[in-house]
C-alpha cells in the first residue's frame, strides 16, 4: 500500500483518500473494479432501494458549461441484485479495497429494511442517501432537508447496520448544515458524506423552448458546486468530530487537497469522471504524491483540517 496516500477511515486503511462517489459507474462489480484498479481507495455503489426502479426517462444526465445536471431518478436494480454485485466485487477486489453501499428508502422504515439486507454483502460502510433531489414529486422533499427525518433515519439505519459503520449523505438544502451534522453525530452516525447534488436546477432548449431534462429539473454537480461543497465540509469538520467524505465538483489534485485542508478524511469523485475519465483517480493520486514529496509531507493527516487553525 502506498505509504504516502494510505488513509485510515473508520478503523480501516485504504490505499488512497479518493472515493468513487455514488451515482457514477457504481452499478456493477466489474464497473467498480475498474475504478478501484485506476486508484480509488474505495468505491460507492449507485444508491439502491428495496425494489428495482427504472428512474426517469432521458435526457437524464446533461452536461452544461459549469457541470452536469442530472435527474436519473434513483434507477437501480434493487437490493437483491446489488447484494450480489457487492459480493462479486469483494471477491474480485479483496479486503483492502473499500466498498461503500449507498442505500435509500421511500420511508424511514424502508431505510432500515434496505440496510438490513445490504449488510449481508458486508460493505465497509453504509452510506445513507437522504438527500436525492430528483424524486420529490414521488417521495416529497428530501428527508435530508428536515432535522426530524434525518434524526430518525440515522437511528434506524444505525441499528439496522449492526457493526458496519454508517455515513449520512447530506444536502446543503437544510436550515442549518452544522445543526444537521450534529444531529447525525448525536444519533449514532459514524461519518458524514457532504454534499449531494445541489438545486435542483434546469436547462431549456431555446429551439423547442422547453426544459431539456425529461424530469424538467435535476441536481447540479461538477465544478459549479465545488466551492459550496468545500464550504460545507469546512463547516461540518469544524463543528463535529465525525470523519467526512468531502464530495462535490472535485476534478483536480488541488481541489482534492482543498477538501482535505477543509477537514475531509476522504474525497469523493463523481462528475469528475466526466472531465478526467476513469484515469482521473490515477492522475490525482500521482499529483498528490508529488505534492507531498515536494512539501515533505509524510501523511495527509498533517494537512487535514489545516485551513481551520
Amino acid at each position, binding site marked *: 500500500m502506498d505509504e504516502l496516500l494510505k488513509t485510515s477511515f473508520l478503523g480501516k486503511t485504504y490505499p488512497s483518500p479518493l472515493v468513487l462517489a455514488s451515482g457514477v459507474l457504481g452499478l456493477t462489480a466489474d464497473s467498480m473494479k475498474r475504478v478501484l484498479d485506476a486508484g480509488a481507495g474505495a468505491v460507492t455503489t449507485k444508491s439502491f432501494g428495496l425494489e*428495482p426502479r427504472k428512474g426517469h*426517462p432521458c435526457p437524464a444526465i446533461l452536461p452544461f458549461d459549469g457541470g452536469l445536471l442530472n435527474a436519473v431518478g434513483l434507477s437501480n436494480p434493487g437490493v437483491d441484485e446489488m447484494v450480489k454485485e457487492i459480493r462479486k466485487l469483494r471477491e474480485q477486489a479483496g479486503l483492502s479495497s473499500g466498498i461503500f453501499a449507498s442505500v435509500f428508502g421511500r420511508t424511514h422504515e424502508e431505510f432500515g429494511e434496505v440496510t438490513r439486507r445490504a449488510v449481508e454483502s458486508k460493505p465497509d460502510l453504509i452510506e445513507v442517501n437522504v438527500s436525492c433531489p430528483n424524486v420529490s414529486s414521488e417521495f416529497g422533499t428530501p428527508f435530508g432537508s428536515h432535522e426530524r427525518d434525518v434524526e430518525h433515519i440515522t437511528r434506524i439505519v444505525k441499528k439496522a447496520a449492526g457493526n458496519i459503520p454508517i455515513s449520512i449523505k447530506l444536502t446543503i438544502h437544510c436550515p442549518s448544515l452544522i445543526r444537521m451534522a450534529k444531529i447525525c453525530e448525536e444519533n449514532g452516525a459514524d461519518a458524514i458524506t457532504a454534499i449531494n447534488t445541489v438545486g435542483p436546477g434546469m436547462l431549456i432548449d431555446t429551439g423547442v423552448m422547453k426544459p*431539456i431534462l425529461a424530469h424538467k429539473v435535476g441536481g447540479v454537480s461538477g465544478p459549479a458546486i465545488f466551492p459550496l461543497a468545500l464550504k460545507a465540509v469546512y463547516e461540518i469538520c469544524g463543528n463535529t468530530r465525525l470523519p467526512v467524505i468531502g464530495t462535490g465538483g472535485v476534478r483536480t489534485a488541488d481541489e482534492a487537497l482543498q477538501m482535505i485542508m477543509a477537514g475531509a478524511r476522504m474525497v469523493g469523485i463523481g462528475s469528475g469522471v466526466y472531465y478526467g475519465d476513469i484515469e482521473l483517480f490515477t492522475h490525482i493520486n500521482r499529483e498528490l504524491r508529488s505534492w507531498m514529496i515536494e512539501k515533505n509531507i509524510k501523511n495527509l493527516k498533517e494537512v487535514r483540517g489545516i485551513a481551520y487553525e
Partner: protein
Amino acid sequence: MSDQMKTYPVLNIKSHSPVMKSFYFSQPESDIQPGRFFNVWLPGVDEKPFSVSDVFQGIMEITVKAVGPFSRKMMDVRRGDLVGLRGPFGKGFSHHQHALLVGGGMGIVPLRYLTRLLRQQGFYFEVLLGGRCSQDIPFQTDFSEWAPTTFVTDDGSLGYKGAVTDYMQDKIRESHLSFVYSSGPEAMLVKVMDLAAQVGLDYEISFERYMKCGIGICGQCVVDGSGIRLCKEGPVLTRQEAEKVSEWGMPHRDATGRRNTR
C-alpha cells in the same frame, strides 16, 4: 464532439418501408466515424442512442426502424421538426483492407456509412447482409453498387434463404478476405465472433446495450467481464476487447440495471 444538447431541424425524410425511415440533418460535428452514435432527443418523449447511417456533403443521416415506443414516435416526425442531437459518442470502426462486412437487421445501418469510407480509401471489401425479409434490409441498391454484396433472408424474399452466418463460413474461407466487421442482433454476433475466431480472423463488432448518459459516467452500459463502457470504449469493440466480455448472448440489463430475463 458536443455533449451538450442542441436541437436541429429535420431537413428531409426518406421512407424505406412503412416502419423504417431515414432522417437528414445538417452535419452537427466533423469527427463522425462510422460506428459512433448520437443521442437523439424527441422533446416530450425520450432520448435514445442511434448510430449514424451516413454522412455526405455536410448532411448526416440517421436511420430508424419502429420497434419500440420511442422509434414509433420517430415515425411521426415531419420535415422541419426540431430534434435534439448530442454526440458523436463512443468509438467507431477503423479502416481495414480486404474486409467482409456482416450485417443483420438494423445492424446494417452503421455498415452502410462504413462502406462509404472504405470505398473512398479505395479498399476492396465484400458485404453479407441478412434480415427476416427484403423489407428489413435498407440501402440494398447502395451496397450492391459499391461492393460485391450477398443478401440472405429468413423467408427467401431477397437473395438466399437462411441465416447470414451460414454464408459467412464459406466467405471467410476465401483467402482474400482477412478482416470482419459486423453489427446486428447479438445472437448473430456471437456466431460471427465464433466463426472469425475459428479461422483466426481479426474483427471489429458493434454491440448494443441500454444507455442513459452516452458520456461514460452512468455505468448502465458496462459489460461484465471487462468493465468496458459500450458508450465510451464501444460500441465498436476489437476482437481483443470483445473476447474479454463474459456476457455476450445473455439477456441485457434494462433501465433498472437488472438483467432482463423475461
